[in-house]
């Protein structure tokens, strides 16, 4: 399959690969996909008390497009507020990486992953607030 230069760059030099401590209150973790379907994404964000994403990390099991989509979204969410990050659409990722139609589901997975990470962060922190 012929992939765009941007996609290949993200695949060959993925940004922000890694993990954060998922037990930390400032960290939100999203784990989406399924091994049986051939793609699993773990996306983590570290959020400041002001609600700004100061860092993002990912690990992905999946095809080159899935890896590139997760790498790209970690770049995009850094410095954004939770609302801004949650508003990222899969179509923007698909367009930026010029994903072929059969690979559009990879960008959907990336959108799901950031949404899951944000909601994990929010639920952890509202539970913590309630406990205080």
């Amino acid at each position, binding site marked *: 399959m012929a992939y765009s230069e941007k996609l290949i760059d993200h695949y060959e030099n993925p940004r922000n690969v890694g993990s954060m401590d998922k037990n930390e209150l400032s960290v939100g973790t999203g784990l989406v996909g*399924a091994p049986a379907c051939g793609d*699993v*994404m773990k996306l983590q964000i570290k959020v400041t008390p002001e609600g700004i994403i100061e860092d993002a990390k990912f690990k992905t*099991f999946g095809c080159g497009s899935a890896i590139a989509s997760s790498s790209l979204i970690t770049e995009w969410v850094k410095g954004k507020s939770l609302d801004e990050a949650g508003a990222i659409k899969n179509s923007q990722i698909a367009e930026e990486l010029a994903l072929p139609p059969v690979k559009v589901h990879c960008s959907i997975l990336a959108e799901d992953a950031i949404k899951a990470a944000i909601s994990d962060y929010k639920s952890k922190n509202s539970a913590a607030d309630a406990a205080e």
Partner: protein
Amino acid sequence: MQRARKRVTLPDKRVSEEAFNMNELKAKPIYLDYQATTPTDPRVVEAMLPYFTEKFGNPHSRNHSFGWEAEDAVEVARAQVAKIIGASAKEIIFTSGATESNNLALKGVMKFYGKKKPHLITVVTEHKCVLDSARHLEQEGYKVTYLGVKENGLIDLEELKAAITDETALVSVMAVNNEIGVIQPLKEIGAICRERKVFFHTDCAQAVGKIDLDVEDMNIDLMSISGHKIYGPKGVGALFVRRRPRVRVIAQITGGGQERGMRSGTLPTPLIVGLGKACDILSNEMAEENARLTELRDYTLARFRDRLADIYLNGDEKERVCGNLNVSFAYVEGESLLMDIKNIAVSSGSACTSASLEPSYVLRALGVDEELAHTSLRIGIGRYTTKEELDTAVDAICTAVERLREMSPLWEMAQEGIDLKSIEWAEH
């Protein structure tokens, strides 16, 4: 092997020099996909060439020397093909390839005998062209039993025995699987079929030249052969059809009645000469070649096992053809692996590499977990593969697996001791 390397030299020096200059700029790709197709042996090309130009006659022309010359060449080839499977030349029908041979065997036999015996038995791991022929027959009202396979990819002979009924006309079991390289017990299957008076067809596209085949000893009634899997040209193949006891087939391509009425159409003399020559080379060199390939295959697998944990060989390790390795590299998706090793031509059972977005049906039939099916590579070793190429490929694949595992959340979880099966994944 020195000799094997030399054979690759192209006859036209200019072409090879040009290719060489281009390869200086780009690393030379390494071909490890010999189950998909093989390069035509230069000796085969050489044998074919005169039949395109000065010896161009129609082998069915009975009135002049051009025709006789072509016919003689076709008959030499027929004998060469017959020899490698222990058949007589009269039992060989030329076709356009194993796809056509399989179609003719299944549809041809079922349509001839189907009124009394409408039942066909085949196997879930067969090549698509066998399965699709069976599906078409089903749509026309024939009954088909699809045998499953054991975890090692082999059929259960007891299950086969139990599936045969008085209505069974044909059993079709491939000799060597194209994805996982396992060798079915042909002799045992042949004995069962003969005892029950059922015809036995076997798709030998991946078996000819790799394992010893003898249609008498194995009681084979029909056998499909392909040219381009055995260093012959693409677009030619053969079907062995037994004469004693006689097997009848209804022609699927009708017309001038060539090939004793079983397959009409002017025979492509150059391609047939090439198929014959490819068989002739195998008759002489097969034992030596396969010993070398077996050694290379075992060496390659041992190197993978030395360097990487959590890898699994798909298909039986012993009952396996010499040139095939099919390995799952757990926690690393196959297509991403292929992208990393783009100078190495291998294929993957991953869904992402198939048009259907389903992982390999062959691996699934073995009971390989879907997640492991997504991580498989097929490495095909053949006549021109060198140890140096395999070393380069193993290093590249292992480095890629290590890099991608560092990036894989599943690998991370496995290292933390988390059982991946215990997690509720959101299937999408």
